């Protein structure tokens, strides 16, 4: 580009005084991008690029060995996925896990949060700490302890309930056990989030309603819960998107997807495809489908939340 530079008339103030020089303006304009650049670069290289590769790989057949070539197969991987019963069954089991976890990640935390709100400050902190503890236990460690609690012989659960179930090795109970263990580790986190949400609600509304003669139940139903709705939506969204992810370490250590695939949800199925079956294309296709499905659900929920949430602004 050619720019004609007019020589400043002698005596007139340099234009610099009015506007900072181009160089500095460019630096100032680029500043936000420079701050963001390292994070964006990492995200690009380690998440978006692999994602693009997954999409690409899903149209190929390959056994993960560097020495063998990748053969293009078009949509055949997707065709196979849809023809195989695995994916559909795993999807149903995933929905079961999500629905099964909602009481632990939303219902109980809200009940506990509402109760502990009326408790004195000190006691509440202690209570929260006790409930929060399981969240901090590494999933592998929780798998170990629950394995012993659920042991068919010496396990405490059977002793207390008077049952003789082999919880983790029977098709009927394994999925239930996985949900209860996952719920155990999520409960504390969700309770903390709910308490934080409740703490953010202005107490004046409740007091005003009380003066007008509203009962405690009415206040909870018509004031507290609507104001808590952003928190609730956040928890539901997390449960839907992350349930399968939360169960993964437990399934891998406790049941390996069994017995008879009873605990194989989409997350575990995908891992199984990628690392045990040496069928990279099929795994990638399943990954793309999972990704698209979760993306759609997330978008739907975010939409819904925008319509449902009452904001205290």
């Amino acid at each position, binding site marked *: 580009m050619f720019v004609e530079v007019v020589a400043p008339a002698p005596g007139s103030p340099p234009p610099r005084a009015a506007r900072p020089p181009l160089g500095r303006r460019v630096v100032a*304009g680029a500043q936000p991008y420079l701050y963001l650049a*390292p994070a964006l670069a990492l995200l690009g290289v380690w998440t978006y690029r692999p994602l693009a590769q997954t999409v690409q790989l899903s149209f190929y057949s390959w056994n993960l060995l*560097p020495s063998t070539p990748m053969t293009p197969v078009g949509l055949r991987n997707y065709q196979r996925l849809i023809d195989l019963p695995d994916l559909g069954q795993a999807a149903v089991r995933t929905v079961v896990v999500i629905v099964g976890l909602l009481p632990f990640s939303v219902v109980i935390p809200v009940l506990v949060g509402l109760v502990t709100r009326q408790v004195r400050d000190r006691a509440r902190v202690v209570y929260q700490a006790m409930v929060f503890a399981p969240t901090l*236990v590494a999933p592998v*460690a929780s798998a170990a302890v629950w394995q012993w609690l659920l042991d068919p012989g010496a396990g405490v659960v059977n002793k207390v309930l008077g049952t003789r179930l082999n919880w983790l090795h029977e098709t009927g109970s394994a999925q239930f056990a996985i949900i209860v263990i996952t719920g*155990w580790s999520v*409960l504390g986190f969700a309770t903390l989030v709910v308490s934080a949400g409740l703490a953010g609600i202005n107490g004046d509304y409740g007091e005003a309603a009380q003066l007008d003669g509203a009962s405690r139940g009415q206040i909870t139903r018509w004031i507290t819960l609507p104001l808590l709705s952003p*928190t609730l939506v956040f928890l539901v969204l997390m449960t839907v998107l992350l349930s399968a992810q939360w169960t993964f370490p437990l399934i891998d250590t406790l049941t390996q997807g069994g017995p008879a695939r009873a605990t194989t949800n989409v997350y575990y199925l995908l891992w199984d495809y990628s690392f045990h079956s040496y069928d*990279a294309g099929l795994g990638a296709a399943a990954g*793309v489908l999972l990704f698209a499905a979760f993306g759609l659900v997330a978008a739907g929920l975010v939409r819904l939340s925008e319509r449902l949430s009452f904001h205290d602004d």
Partner: protein
Amino acid sequence: MAGLGGTETLGRKSRWAILDLVVVVYALVPVLWIMSLSFKTTKTLTDGNFIPREWTLDNYKAIFQTSEFVRALGNSIGIAIISTVIAVVLGTMAAYAVARLDFPGKKALVGVSLLVAMFPQVSLVSPLFEIERSVGLFNTWPGLILPYITFALPLSIYTLSAFFREIPWELEKAAKMDGATPAQAFRKVIAPLAAPGVFTTAILVFILCWNDFLFAISLTSTSASRTVPAALSFFTGASQFEDPTGSISAAAVVITVPIIVFVLLFQRRIVAGLTSGAVKG
């Protein structure tokens, strides 16, 4: 309040108390159980007693004599600390731009960064495995550190930018007017205000990396980089012929207790962090 329906309130109160009690028992019994197991002798491991009849530290001694565990613990500590420091530094830079500066394309860039938190990680594990194998990062420290930083970034940017939005930045200007240099204004005014947020974020990121299982088992193959969660799933006990229960519970306590102590010490800050971060969003 007291006079009206006293019995009803009492009944209700006791019902709530029972709910609270059940939740606490459900939450705490497994945690205490694993501690109890770790102090039991081999003989009494399976007696089902809540309080060990014979206390012993043998399980702890045994795992600290197992090179497999000691290596894994070293890997866990190193990898988690390095990932946390880098993720928080990069997150702070990004969050500063997000919270304080206005620039074209901001919304899209923020969206692109935060969206990653919703990615099903498992769908990225196998391509990451490919990439790492081809560039020689597989089964190395950086091979875990880089994905950890990346997956911690959305959380870190999200929490930090929520914190930074709450900081009264006018104070910086005020300090400069009072004669402070920009460096002084930052060090004496802004840094102390930002510290709780940075600190909370660091703890959350650390827990994320420390407890990770998926990447740890998929991107490592030997004790050169295997972290404790991955090592535990392969752990067969201090010696081949011994029941690993005692050793595994001791290892589980060793990796859990530091985190619990850490979080309990700083619980108030973390709750504050969640209040301004995750919920108000």
